[in-house]
């Protein structure tokens, strides 16, 4: 019997990364901007998508991949807005993986401009999985508290944009928008920050404009 030590140096999430890069390559080639939305359960991802769908007027087309543990409820809400939605049911898993998105891929029409991926509500696990997105947005709702960025560093350091939601509740809560913004920027100085209220409709236009300019940048890069 011989014992042998071998040097491997292989990434444990290497296979996910590889699939994600392939997805990103295919989507960007088609000129589709893919946006991965991360947040705790109930931060308002689906409601935000409903508001975005109202602001994003033709000729722009969007589609949504919905990640949930159970039920098609979120996908039905999106479809009710006339937006195509594809549901991924993880059956208990706390995050989406690139191979799950890969299975939906053949159903995605090539003429989309925006593909939103609504991840499973969870600020921890989804942060470790690249899904092939171009932009990663993390949502923080005001009832969650302004101290969340540093408690969930991975989500905030890997995001491109922070969307504070339910800003209309600030007068009722001990939530300091500036403090949460500053905390998040200490973790990630490059974050684009948006302050929104889906109920009042504030901040949605600025966010949509940011997505539109990101789409233009992407298309210039891959033209």
């Amino acid at each position, binding site marked *: 019997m011989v014992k*042998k030590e071998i040097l491997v140096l*292989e*990434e*444990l*999430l290497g296979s996910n990364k590889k699939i994600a890069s392939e997805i990103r390559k295919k989507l960007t080639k088609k000129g589709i901007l893919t946006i991965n939305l991360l947040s705790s359960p109930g931060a308002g991802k689906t409601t935000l998508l409903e508001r975005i769908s109202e602001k994003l007027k033709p000729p722009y087309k969007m589609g949504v991949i919905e990640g949930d543990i159970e039920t098609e409820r979120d996908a039905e809400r999106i479809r009710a807005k006339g937006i195509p939605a594809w549901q991924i049911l993880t059956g208990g898993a706390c995050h989406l993986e690139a191979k799950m998105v890969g299975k939906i891929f053949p159903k995605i029409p090539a003429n989309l401009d925006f593909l939103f991926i609504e991840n499973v509500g969870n600020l921890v696990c989804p942060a470790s999985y690249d899904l092939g997105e171009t932009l990663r947005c993390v949502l923080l709702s005001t009832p969650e508290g302004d101290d969340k960025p540093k408690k969930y*560093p991975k989500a905030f350091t890997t995001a491109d944009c922070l969307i504070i939601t339910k800003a209309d509740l600030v007068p009722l809560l001990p939530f300091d928008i500036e403090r949460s913004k500053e905390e998040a920027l200490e973790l990630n*100085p490059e974050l684009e920050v948006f302050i929104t209220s889906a109920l009042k409709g504030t901040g949605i236009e600025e966010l949509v404009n940011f997505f539109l300019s990101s789409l233009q940048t992407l298309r210039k890069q891959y033209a």
Partner: protein
Amino acid sequence: MHELSIVANLFEILEEKAREKRAKKVTLVKLRVGALSGVVSEFLETAFDIYKKDTIAAEAILKIVDIPLKIECQKCHKKTVKKDFVFICEHCGSRELKMLQGTELLLEKMELEI
């Protein structure tokens, strides 16, 4: 709690490498886990112990090396090992930093019985 899913990926690599080397057993697995890798080492250990039963690594010992976050300031060029995740240079206050280590989640080495 995605550690079990990560351990499933680990076993795919372990089994493939063991097959390549025609090993009878995997006796040691060494991982490098960064402070910003998004996983908890203790949960990886638990998941590893659950998963290893009836596999080629059933008797394997798992060693995890925790890697702290290390940054290099692009202005004053000083290197700092961070205990928090505040991306501001402690020496000059710059936010232009390069991450040197701390996000890795690697299978570094394995020991086989051939």
